Structure formats: C-alpha cells, structure tokens
C-alpha cells in the first residue's frame, strides 16, 4: 500500500514568482522567506517522495465563474502553467500520476464527495510556486495530483467539510495498491486580505495559533465558520482551508520538522511548515 511520508505547507503569493524570475532570493526583503527552503529541501530529499498530492485554490487560470467546482481533482497525464495576466516566465510542465488520480476520484465519490474530475487542467501559481520553491531547478522528481478547493466564490466549503475531504484523501492514498511514497501539500495563506478598506489585514496571533494547532489540535479550525475565519485572517487568508485538507490527510501523529513565519511578503503573512508522519 502507498505510504504518506509527510505534508508540506507554504504561502503561494504571486510575487514569489517575480522574485524567483528576478533572482531576488537573497535580497533583504525576500531572504527571511526563501531561507526556509534549504532545510525543507533537505527533509524532502531524504523522505524520497514519488508523488505529490497538491491541495490549492485556482485564482482564475483554469476555472472561471462560469463553472466553479467546490472540490476538483486532476486526472490528466500532464499539467501546465500558463500566463495568469502578468507575463512572468512559466515553470516546466508537471507529469501526472493518472493511476492515483483515478483511485482518488473513485474513492472520494464512493465516500460521498461529489467532486469534479478534470482530464485537462491548467495549474496556476498556487500549485507551481510551492513546487518551484521545493525544487528550484524545476526538474520535478515527483509525479503530481492536483486537488483544487474553491476559496473564490462564496459559499465556500466549511472547514469541517474540508477536514473530512482531507481524511478521505489520506485514507484513499493508504488504500492504494502501490509502493509509492506520497507527500501531501497545502498551499496559500496565511492571513491576508487584498480587497476593500480592510486591505492589508494581517493577524499574527491567529496565524500563530493556527500553526500550533497543526501539531497539537488540528481540528481547531473545523469548529469555526467560514465567516469567522475570514474575520480573523482576511478574505484570502481563508486559503488556510487548503492547509486543513492536507493536514487531515496525515494518517496519524505528526512531528513538526520545520516552521517559518514571516511578515510580510507582498501583503501576506507568509508561512512554511513541514510535518513528518510518525508511523
């Protein structure tokens, strides 16, 4: 059976792509964020994953408001990034793992999750930047399966529902007849709000509590409504739902092997976390 080796979490602010394109990783503004990655790369290299299941939200590259799935799973042989409106360089294409994709699709529908299945799918910065941060040479050593959560058009799925989706993903991976080693990734957040008179909202105390909860009390957020979460962490901070799905996929106890929290990159409180599965 497949093994979940751990989970990895990072903010996915588009400006990270600009910093990578301009080679600004060591600039004073960016260094506190990029410094998170050498140790995380050491961890993930040692953990030898074959596949990354990446939980993220699309920002208007693959999905528009004409058809907005609450949960979508990629089942394509290949996934490409594309111009999102800013004309920055695109990363190398990603190779999918169709066997795991279809196993997830079948398992999730059997578990009463009415997901959308995508045999063609563009993946935006929320998918590509975390990959490029882990593997800066962009020679991807893993196959990928995208899982997209609607954090754009309200109503959003509740935190409790996202937790259950993550649990079902985790169980499906562990029931998959394969010797693959799988890392689950959650991208986005933490607190930030781009729009309205409250633009620039950051909530360090909530973010810290959330980061602590990932190890000690991972269902903490599931006891909060979407409105409560948005009030605390902002209209885009609600992307922490992606983290929650990834965290819920972890099969048992976890050990935090890395944590970085830095304010700000762009308008965002940035965070990077790695959790190892303790079998």
């Amino acid at each position, binding site marked *: 059976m497949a093994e979940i080796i751990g989970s990895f979490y990072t903010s996915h602010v588009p400006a990270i792509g600009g910093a990578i394109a301009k080679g600004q990783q060591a600039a004073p503004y960016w260094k506190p964020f990029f410094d998170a990655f050498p140790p995380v790369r050491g961890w993930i290299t040692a953990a030898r994953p074959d596949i990354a299941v990446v939980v993220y939200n699309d920002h208007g590259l693959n999905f528009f*408001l004409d058809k907005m799935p609450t949960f979508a799973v990629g089942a394509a042989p290949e996934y490409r990034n594309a111009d999102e409106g800013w004309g920055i360089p695109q990363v190398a294409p990603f190779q999918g793992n169709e066997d795991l994709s279809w196993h997830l699709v079948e398992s999730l529908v059997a578990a009463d999750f009415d997901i959308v299945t995508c045999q063609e799918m563009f993946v935006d910065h929320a998918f590509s930047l975390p990959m490029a941060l882990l593997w800066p040479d962009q020679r991807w050593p893993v196959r990928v399966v995208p899982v997209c959560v609607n954090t754009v058009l*309200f109503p959003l799925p509740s935190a409790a529902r996202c937790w259950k989706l993550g649990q079902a993903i985790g169980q499906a991976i562990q029931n998959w007849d394969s010797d693959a080693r799988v890392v689950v990734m959650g991208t986005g957040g933490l607190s930030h709000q781009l729009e309205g008179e409250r633009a620039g909202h950051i909530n360090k105390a909530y973010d810290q509590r959330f980061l602590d909860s990932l190890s000690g009390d991972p269902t903490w957020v599931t006891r909060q409504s979407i409105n409560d979460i948005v009030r605390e962490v902002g209209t885009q901070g609600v992307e922490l739902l992606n983290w929650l799905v990834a965290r819920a996929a972890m099969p048992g106890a976890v050990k935090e092997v890395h944590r970085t929290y830095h304010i700000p990159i762009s308008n965002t409180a940035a965070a990077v976390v790695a959790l190892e599965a303790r079998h």
Partner: protein
Amino acid sequence: MTTIRQVHDDIPGTMLFDSRAARKGYALNKMCYSFNDKANRDAFVADEAAYCARYGLNAEQRQAIAERDVLKLLAAGGNAYYLAKFAGIFGLDMQDIGAQQTGMSKEAFKAKLVAARDH
C-alpha cells in the same frame, strides 16, 4: 422550508464575493479573466471602450475601469482575483492596490504591513 444563505456583512471594510457580487459583476469579471491572454491585454490597451463594450460592461463598471478605482470596481461586482489581472496591465502590485483602497501612500501602506509583526 428554511433558506440558509451564506451572506454576511459584519466584517468591517470587507465584501465577501458572494451571490450578490457574482451576479452583479459577471461581465466585469469575465472581461478581467480574458486578460490572462496577452493578445487580449493588448486589445484592451488599444481601445478600452470597445473592449469594455464587447464584454457588455454596464455604465458603473465602465466608469470604474476608466478611473482605475479598485473600491468602485469591487462595488460594481469585481472579484479581487480577476481584478488582479486588470491591475497587472498597468504594472501595479498589491501594495499599490492596497494603498489606493485604504487612502494611504504606498510607503505608509507597506509600513502598516511591517508593523503587523509587532501585534
């Protein structure tokens, strides 16, 4: 039967992108979504009015586009993620956008972000 709507207006300075904005802003957001393609960005820059007309923007939306006024674009039903593609045409970053909406200088807005470290 009870209807449960996820509509909330109790977060200061915040408009959730719910059914009201989605219905009002569809044409505006569809136009901004088209800016993923450089050819469309170029077509907009070449003739803004014609491009807005092609997507059926109403008078409120056309004025907000012409004024590059983010709060008015939001009030006209715009969604932040699609509006970001519009802002990209002019090379504006999120600190420009934040400063405009909060009535601050860009430097003051950036200082406000940094100050969140100490809260």
